[in-house]
């Protein structure tokens, strides 16, 4: 009888330790998950900011200003345009 009790006690202690460990692991995993969630959110924000930046730099008016000003570009003159195509070979 005493032997059985001792055995059960050992099993109980083992189970208890197992519970503590798994709880600890669960919490750790949860904080990891939380961190990744935050990262996802931050990346989304970053993406928005980059989109904003891309739109600002790529603003048509700015592109045109640089093209005509700094690069000296202008729309092709009609007289210097030739159409190429199956049916537009004028």
């Amino acid at each position, binding site marked *: 009888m005493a032997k059985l009790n001792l055995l059960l006690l050992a099993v109980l202690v083992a189970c208890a330790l197992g519970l503590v460990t798994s709880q600890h692991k*669960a*919490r750790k995993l*949860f*904080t990891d998950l*939380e961190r990744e969630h935050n990262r996802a959110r931050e990346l*989304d*924000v970053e993406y*928005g*900011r980059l*989109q*904003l930046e*891309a*739109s*600002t730099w*790529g*603003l*048509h*008016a700015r592109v*045109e200003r640089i093209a005509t000003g700094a690069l000296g570009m202008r*729309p092709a*003159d*009609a*007289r210097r*345009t030739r*159409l190429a*195509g199956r049916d*537009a070979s*004028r």
Partner: protein
Amino acid sequence: MSAAAQGLVRLPVWRARFVLAVLALAFGVLAARSVYLQAMRTEFLQERGDARYSRVIEVPATRGRILDRNGDALAVSTPVKSVWAIPADVELTREQRRKLTALLAVEPAELGKKLSSAKDFVFLKRQVPPDTALAIATLAIPGIYQHPEYRRYYPGGEITAHVLGFTGVDDGGQEGVELAHEATLGGKPGSRRVIKDRLGHIVEDIESIRAAQSGVDLQLSIDGKLQSLAYGALKAAVEANRAKAGGIIALDVRTGEILALANVPSFNPNNRAKLTGAQLRNRVITDLFEPGSTLKPFTVALALESGKVTPATRVSTAPGTLTMAGYTIRDVHPAASMSISQIVQKSSNVGSAKLALALPRESMWDLFNRVGFGTAPALGFPGAAAGKLHPYKSWKPVEQATMAYGHGISLSLVQLARAYTLFARDGELVPLSLVKTGAAASGEKVISTETARAVRAMLELAVQPGGTAPRARISGWRVAGKTGTAHKQENGAYAADKYIASFVGFAPASEPRLIIAVMIDEPAGSQHYGGSVAAPVFSQVMQGALRLMAVPHDAPLDPIPADEADEAREST
């Protein structure tokens, strides 16, 4: 041998029983107490316990982005911080005060006033950029806190201001598309219950009370490049003609999508410190004006539909004036007689008035009503104007005559542009959309294909030399369109020297793809005619748009001669 003799004291039996009873009673009390705590007060106690370590935290939801038809961002929300304080708790050293004032970019006096107020809570500044917020946080001033918020940025600035509208300080839509699509754009913040440890780290998620719903991204039909082109051309024209205001709209003929919509004067939605009502008005959609001659093609179409006339039928317009009920209708180019085509080409008031008088007023009202005049366009846009179209029973003959050339009726530029889909789409009227559909729209047949094509041919004549708007022509594509130069109404009478110059047209005329309508309010330069003020804006934007959309040419790429001698004038 007695007990006493053996040194033993014999206790009375009741004492042992008494002790037993007391112990039993004590156990009883404990049991009752535990039953009371466990069964009766359990909820309260659990709540108290939870309050020690479990917290409800808010899960922020972001507002949806607004994109143009190519996927470029037009409006994006990014997180910022609001700095707030509990004035009673704030302790500032002189140095800290100086730094805080500099970081917040506020007046020292204003900061002092806020910090000495008797309130429990004051915002020191809202929508502070993240890096500034971090600098403020490192000052570690007691009693000053930060709260995360979102701020909306509009990279297009004034170019897209009127279409997009803007959001308030709490990121809710207040104008334009932001307001119209508030339900889908606006996110709903969620909340969840968590267990936090002593340091404030979340250690366990207990339950999600409400999942955060982020706003849905919205893709508009607007083309960023075309929008920029349209705004730039309009702004330049308004400045060059010293006009009060202007509006422009570009429609895709096949899909009914609005590709560009701009107004001048505009505003910068990123910095709305000093705004006037004039800047905020989305004139294209909310402002009504008398369209003038741009309405003549509808009168002509109706006459053709009646079957009584053909484009070649001649109408007597001598002597260039028509007097009815004390009101004289005049032509700028008087002629003895004109064909129906010439009435449109030369923009004859007398001719169109005579055509209208030969038609029943019901049918005229019916056409105007069916093309959407007098009904607010179903754009879902806040403040869309319906226009004024009086019931035909109240029309006097002179009113019917003036309405034939667009006076006595008022509409918005978007209504006018939409009505022109009739001529661009072989008689069909299409519903408009500000949201990208990408699919061809099915229209409602209003006039016959033959009539629509005949009017289209006349509209093409109007932009040729001898018409009212040769300056609307572009190299490489055939263009069709009509000018308008209407006197402005002021206090119920027409002002002699105030005009609204307009031009509505489409291209390529062989297979129309794009309708552009331009309106310039009170041009005060040397010119005020639609053909010289509004038509150049049209041609500039149309040419750029057709090139952007890679529309095949339907005319030789010859340069357009800048000859103004052949330009016909008009008075409406």
